[in-house]
């Protein structure tokens, strides 16, 4: 409990933002979903330093920059929140239905799905991130796809510009356009799905 209270005070703005996104994803309890996502991020030894560096409301003067770049952390936070909201939805559905079906089953805690192991959670997040990219691929410009292919081959953006005979600004423009298209897919995937998709537009807005 005290950890949650500390996190609430240290990461107030991040929790507000995650809460808004959780609501958009169809969470019935966005504040708890945001707290759960933050808790899991602070429990992970890889994401924790990045969360603290980028998002603590007050950063210590001598804070060490984290190993994770900002975009890696943001993708992780999106993935964790996505998973937490799905989990919440499954739990609500189970409780509602099982109360009518399994008479005599009074051990409610046994109905909650177990938390995934850290490796499992990481795999679920990776799958969500891959799906964003795969879904979007057919709509990406050929220029950006060429850049992605070279990135996949391990080239840096400067090398890519040189190899394609264009300036780094041109590559940056292609990347911007590509990211804008991908961001629309991210936005689509933060809308509620399944039964929650019936929620009227605007009810889950930011």
């Amino acid at each position, binding site marked *: 409990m005290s950890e949650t209270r500390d996190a609430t005070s240290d990461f107030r703005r991040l929790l507000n933002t995650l809460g808004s996104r959780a609501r958009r994803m169809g969470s019935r309890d966005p504040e708890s979903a945001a707290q759960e996502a933050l808790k899991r991020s602070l429990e992970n030894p890889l994401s924790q330093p990045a969360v603290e560096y980028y998002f603590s409301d007050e950063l210590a003067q001598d804070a060490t920059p984290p190993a994770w770049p900002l975009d890696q952390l943001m993708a992780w936070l999106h993935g964790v929140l996505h998973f937490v909201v799905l989990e919440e939805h499954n739990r609500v559905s189970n409780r509602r239905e099982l109360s009518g079906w399994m008479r005599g089953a009074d051990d409610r805690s046994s109905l909650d799905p177990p938390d995934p192991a850290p490796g499992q959670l990481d795999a679920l997040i990776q799958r969500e991130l891959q799906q*964003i990219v795969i879904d979007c691929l057919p709509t990406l410009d*050929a220029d950006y796809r060429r850049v992605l292919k070279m990135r996949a081959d391990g080239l840096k953006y400067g090398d890519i510009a040189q190899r394609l005979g264009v300036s780094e600004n041109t590559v940056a423009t292609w990347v911007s356009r590509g990211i804008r298209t991908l961001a629309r897919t991210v936005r689509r995937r933060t809308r509620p799905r399944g039964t929650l998709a019936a929620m009227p537009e605007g009810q889950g807005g930011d």
Partner: protein
Amino acid sequence: MKTDLDRPMGEYATREPSPAAARGIAQQALEDADLFDALVAQGAVEASLKNPAVRAAVSVPARRKPWALAFYAAAAAAVLVALFWWRSSPKPIPAPSEQARVVVSKPAIIPSLDAASGRPVLLASELRLTRSSGAPVFRGVTGITGANMLSREPQAGGMITALEDGEATVNLGSLDGLTKGTELATPTGTIVVTTVFRDHARGTITSGAVRDAVQVPVATHLAAVLHEVDALAFAGDVSAARELARKTLSAGSFAETRMLLERLAALDYQAGAIDAAREHFEAAANNLFAPPAASPSEQAATLNSLGALYLLAGEPESAVKPLNQAAAQTGIHSDLRAQILNNLGVLAEMRGDFAGAQADYRGASAEKTSLREHNIAQANLARISNSKRP
């Protein structure tokens, strides 16, 4: 506060800001949902490109836009006009050194997969359409118009639609790869399938509720997708087959999706997308040992197909390694062995080693193999024995 993302995101991605600047952007993203989504997108790309399946999907050439096609058509027409003008105008005979350069830049022999081509014929059954093994699933119906209307795509997950006396009905069936005994994961346990219909199934359940999500095992789902991909290809919709295979590549680990990747590569070849086929076979060949490793037969077939594609592209030196690795596999079917030996013969012929080519073609003919393989190896041997060589 909204940000104009066009420049900042490109610069963020390509110029790697200092940690302090990144913290500034992070604080800004807390107020700007578009910037938050853009950072998630950038992170998703960088994380996903480490996955071989995504890398393979990225390698597929993008669809050209209509205006681009018009532009290419106009450019092609202009080239044809210029070529016609050039051919019809008097021109000097090229100097011997120029002639020699032209001969060196083009491979002297380009093989074919067509037995009637009169050229060295390659054998690579993976590059031809074959039905995947497994229980037959009725996937296509012929409509009133005579058009083939295929069934829905296999689903990776569904839900419980009814519960009665410990038996659950789910909206997944044989179309989704389910068979008697398949175990479906639910949030609270499993359903063991006892009765399977085309689009739904029943099974025993220990705990769960109506509308609970159920998950098909990854291997089962991928096998069903492979089946659907084959059905689409046989119905003549290679484009839809490729699309389904491509978008399912992220459904499992690389070892789990390797067979799908190989099928996608074969479909690429059949669709005339030679570069995509090569890249996909290369991706499959590079990961033959991703656990669980491919069987010797799968390794040999993939390497043989990759080698054949290199030969078809007129790159015999690139084909040396995969074909030799394929030949080194033991315990493989004699049909596949004959195909590899035949293709090694084509490789030797392309490199000017006619004695070696004859030996390989003889070896292929000597394998106890199907009539087609035997006849093609024999034809290659007869052609090279009868040809006048320098």
